């Protein structure tokens, strides 16, 4: 029954709406209330149904503009992992917050918006999904109402994000003007026969799409809100923004560019290549001198966005295999896990040490051994050290670049590889701080179990994907094929 395919959406919607009222109910006298459990249940149901759909459904199912294919399911899996990690970590992080109901409700609705983005084959739906994702995150970023940093972060985030939404609408207006349609397949066929007279509008639309999505994807120079927002936002929401919202923006970009605009005879690939190189270089270089852990994570996430952008620059090989695209998707998965876990680790440190300064990391391995170990693993994964997961997605991305039909593909890969090598300097530096430096305070710090659970789960996933990447590579290849 085709409606079953909607289970992930429905469960997120239902439980998301339920969570807010559930926030008023107490659960066995615990301080937590019922909302977190309702939302985690909702996420679990969505997750299980997504996995089940992934194994059973063979052909794509469409509802209006909503398309449930392996691309959708892949992204929904990734985003649900992120949401799950964030939700579980928030159990601890939001323990003392009185507004847990709205918090978890918004979290679920936002997750739903992200999945809708990944599933939308219609620009109207895409825009609705975009807003469904964004509006709750504005509120979530500002959730520490008494923390001026949280407010400031939300303010900046809102201003730039609203601007990006407006520009996306403007871009949609132009595409609609050219093609007279909002469905991506119709747009694709219209664009493939589009005459030269509409090209200027198409080009403007492409630019505005890049800018609009780029704000969330952390494309330089539209990235500037990111470090501020990540630092100011509640740390778990930082993870949600970094791993969830950003990846959802990539999902939207993949949909729009690969499905919709690809047939249009405009060479946007080189644009993406330039943007990718600038983004990763800027992210890596700026990360080097950061003083705050979350800001360092923010810049590293900007750099990682640069790598994923390569998937848009060189999606297909000369033999028309979506290798780069699949690599991009794989990197989305790996990055989502790594970055969420990194933020959770940051949350663990922030809750216990109440400073986010990098100096507080000195000698951390003796104070918080589990956290330090997972940070080390995560950072090595982000740097792309085998056999951790980040390595294989990078390999696919870079191979895809070399393998692409464009003459600059090799340079792109080389630039990315040099960046990747360079990035080790700050990742290694943090590891050095944790393991080699002397702490100013030797005392052992108890590590909250909930964070540790998330971190260990992530660490195991990092190793599992890295050691046996085959099923995952297959998964991303089929997801990429679904787009094409």
């Amino acid at each position, binding site marked *: 029954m085709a409606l079953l395919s909607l289970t992930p959406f429905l469960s997120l919607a239902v439980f998301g709406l339920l969570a807010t009222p559930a926030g008023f109910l107490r659960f066995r006298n615990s301080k937590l209330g019922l909302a977190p459990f309702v939302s985690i249940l909702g996420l679990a149901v969505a997750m299980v149904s997504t996995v089940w759909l992934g194994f059973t459904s063979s052909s794509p199912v469409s509802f209006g503009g909503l398309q449930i294919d392996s691309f959708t399911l892949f992204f929904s899996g990734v985003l649900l992992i992120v949401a799950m990690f964030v939700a579980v970590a928030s159990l601890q992080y939001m323990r003392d917050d009185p507004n847990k109901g709205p918090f978890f409700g918004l979290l679920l609705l936002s997750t739903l918006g992200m999945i809708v983005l990944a599933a939308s084959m219609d*620009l*109207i739906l895409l*825009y*609705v999904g975009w*807003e469904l994702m*964004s*509006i709750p995150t*504005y*509120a979530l970023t*500002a959730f520490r*109402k*008494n923390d*001026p*940093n949280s*407010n*400031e*972060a*939300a*303010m*900046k985030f*809102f*201003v730039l994000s*609203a*601007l990006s*939404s*407006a*520009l996306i*609408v*403007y871009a*949609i*207006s*132009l595409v*609609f*003007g050219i093609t*007279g*349609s*909002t469905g991506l397949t119709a747009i694709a066929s219209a664009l493939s026969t589009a005459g030269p007279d509409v090209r200027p509008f198409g080009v403007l639309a492409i630019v505005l799409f890049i800018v609009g999505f780029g704000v969330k994807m952390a494309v330089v120079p539209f990235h500037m809100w990111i*470090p*501020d927002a990540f*630092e*100011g936002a509640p740390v778990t929401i930082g993870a949600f923004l970094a791993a969830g919202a950003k990846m959802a923006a990539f999902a939207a970009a993949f949909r729009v560019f690969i499905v919709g605009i690809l047939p249009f005879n405009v060479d946007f690939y080189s644009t993406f290549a330039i943007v990718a190189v600038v983004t990763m270089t800027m992210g890596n270089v700026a990360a080097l001198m950061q003083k705050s852990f979350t800001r360092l994570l923010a810049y590293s996430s900007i750099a990682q966005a640069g790598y994923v952008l390569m998937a848009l620059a060189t999606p297909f090989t000369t033999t028309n295999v979506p290798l780069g695209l699949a690599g991009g998707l794989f990197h989305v998965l790996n990055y989502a896990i790594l970055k969420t876990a990194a933020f959770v680790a940051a949350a663990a440190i922030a809750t216990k040490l109440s400073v986010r300064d990098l100096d507080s990391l000195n000698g951390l391995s003796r104070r918080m051994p589990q956290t330090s170990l997972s940070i080390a693993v995560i950072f090595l994964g982000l740097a792309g050290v085998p056999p951790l997961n980040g390595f294989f997605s990078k390999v696919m991305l870079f191979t895809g670049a070399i393998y692409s039909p464009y003459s600059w593909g090799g340079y792109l890969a080389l630039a990315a590889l040099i960046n990747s090598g360079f990035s080790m300097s700050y990742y290694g530096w943090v590891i050095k701080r944790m393991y080699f430096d002397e702490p100013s305070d030797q005392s052992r710090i108890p590590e909250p179990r909930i964070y540790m659970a998330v971190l260990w789960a992530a660490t195991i996933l990092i190793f599992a994907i890295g050691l046996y990447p085959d099923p995952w590579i297959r998964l991303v290849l089929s997801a990429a094929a679904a787009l094409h």
Partner: protein
Amino acid sequence: MEPLSSFFAVSVILLGIGIYGLTTKRNAIRILFSVELIYNAANLNIIAFARLRSPPLVTGQVLVLFTIALAAMEAAVGLSIIILVSRLNAEIDLSKLSKLKG
């Protein structure tokens, strides 16, 4: 009826005013104004494109209904953030909201 280029021109001018406002203004509310102007510019575009083609399309109007509604909701949340900010800070001047940096 006026040609499409006229409507497009108005739309682009509104877009320009919006971006100008964004770059030069520091008051959060006024920045919200600018964003809304860009939305309106886009909406005008859509309606014009939908009407001024043969045959005219109704999809454009549907799209605009959505954008109007969503922009309004976004504005609502944005305004509540502004109120929140004003509670803790002396003002809502964005140039003063620069504790998070570098």
